[in-house]
């Protein structure tokens, strides 16, 4: 880092602070990159796990996505009914 290239302004930026800042910024950037890689890996493996999940047994029929389901006692909600009408 050539400090002669910088416009240091009128403030004393502090040698320790300048040097330390470069290290911290590298660390934090590496953290951001690492976080991004971890997120991608996590999403990749979750897809792989989903793909290899054992089939559901025949007795447990999956819910139909067409059937409106409410959080309250399983009754169809007005909202879901109206959405279906609009659709």
């Amino acid at each position: 880092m050539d400090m002669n290239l910088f416009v240091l302004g009128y403030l004393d930026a502090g040698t320790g602070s300048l040097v330390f800042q470069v290290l911290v910024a590298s660390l934090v950037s590496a953290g951001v990159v690492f976080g991004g890689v971890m997120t991608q890996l996590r999403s990749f493996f979750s897809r792989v796990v989903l793909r290899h999940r054992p089939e559901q047994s025949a007795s447990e029929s999956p819910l139909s996505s067409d059937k409106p389901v409410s959080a309250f006692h399983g009754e169809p909600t007005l909202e879901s009914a109206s959405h279906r009408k609009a659709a």
Partner: protein
Amino acid sequence: MTLAARVPGSFRDPSGFVFSRQGVIHRQIAPSYAPQYERLISSGLYDELVSDELLLPHEELNVRLAFSDEAYKVLRPAQLPFISHPFEWSFSQLKDAALTTLRIQRAAMKRGMTLKDASAYNVQLFDARSVLIDTLSFELYEDGSPWVAYRQFCQHFLAPLALMSRTDVRLGQLFRTYMDGVPLDLASRLLPFRTRFGLGLGLHVHAHAKAQQQYSDHSPSNKTRPSRGMSLKALQSLVTHLEQTVSGLKAPSQQTEWADYYAANNNYGEGGLDAKERVVQGLIADRPPNTVWDLGANDGRFSRLARATGARSVVAWDIDPNCVDANYRQVIAHREQGHFPLLLDLTNPSPAMGWAHRERMSLAERGPVDVVLALGLIHHLAISNNVPLSQVAAYFRTLTRRLVVEWVPKEDSQVRKLLATRPDIFPDYVQAKFEADFANQFRILQKISVEGTCRTLYLMEALPG
């Protein structure tokens, strides 16, 4: 004749300075700052920051209105009703100012600029928002450069916020001693040991302090310089990390003496408080003031009353950091313009500070105002702090043209509480002596008993001369 004077505190930055002409603040830009100012305007950064309410707007005036010859531009910024100092701010106000500074730095980096300083003194409350007031704080961004204001940001914002949040809210007062922010080695020593293990404070305060010590006697020689520059992406990550660290600091939850005064701990029934409000309103409404200081404002109940009478700016001073913080949050939440909740110990008011005592104005230098409200205050000054009534009157006269003051007699439950743990050495604390001492400084215009209490409210006018 144009009376112009350079503002004494504006001398550090060679890019320009602030001067006052007939009471209106102007900013003169030096020719050496022309490229930076042009970039600020042409890049759209100025417009963006003003529309996001992050930067104080200004208008360009004719350069012939400059204070001195060497002028590139003359600006007239929007006029601030009141200038406050960071040690007068509550935790939330300092935190908002920190986040404002980082948002500005983020916006500047996107447009090829950077903040060359990050002083808390450059941020002020304006229209119920924290705004940067120094238009000359921007520098052209040089590829590979670090943020030169990083150290200043940590000292002015991060260290005091961390100390207030994690150690004790009263440590915000360290700003009074350390005008350029809290030294990081001191902050590192005062913070709890466990903060060393957090990524935010561990890095930006503790490790940063160690790095400063490590390089304290090094000039920036080739040996101390890292071999590579700092990419823009790394700089942006640094600012993001600072934002996360500051955002993660929570207001301290210490119980303080006055935080619930009006809610539970007061001397009035609801009727008495309403009666007091009506009397105060009546006393100031006859000649609505422009500027008001409410001394001992607590949650700002009477400050709001003064504002409702048409006062352009009301400063709600209180000694209790939690009261001031709660009041500040209310001001921000409801966008209460012209209302400034600030911290003040009236027995040790903000002094003139800085170079030659002229950089930062004292409390009295920021007055006098049209009206001072001193409600439920006299007994704390005279009895808790042994200040003679004659001296209270004399000091109040330096602060205001008119005074609304509440006399609280010894029979009042609050005074009885103050005297419960000490001998009564105040034979002069009687209403007749109060009136006589204040009559030496003020003309008593009105005197009204507050219904349902043993208190009396006075409206007084400062004697000329």
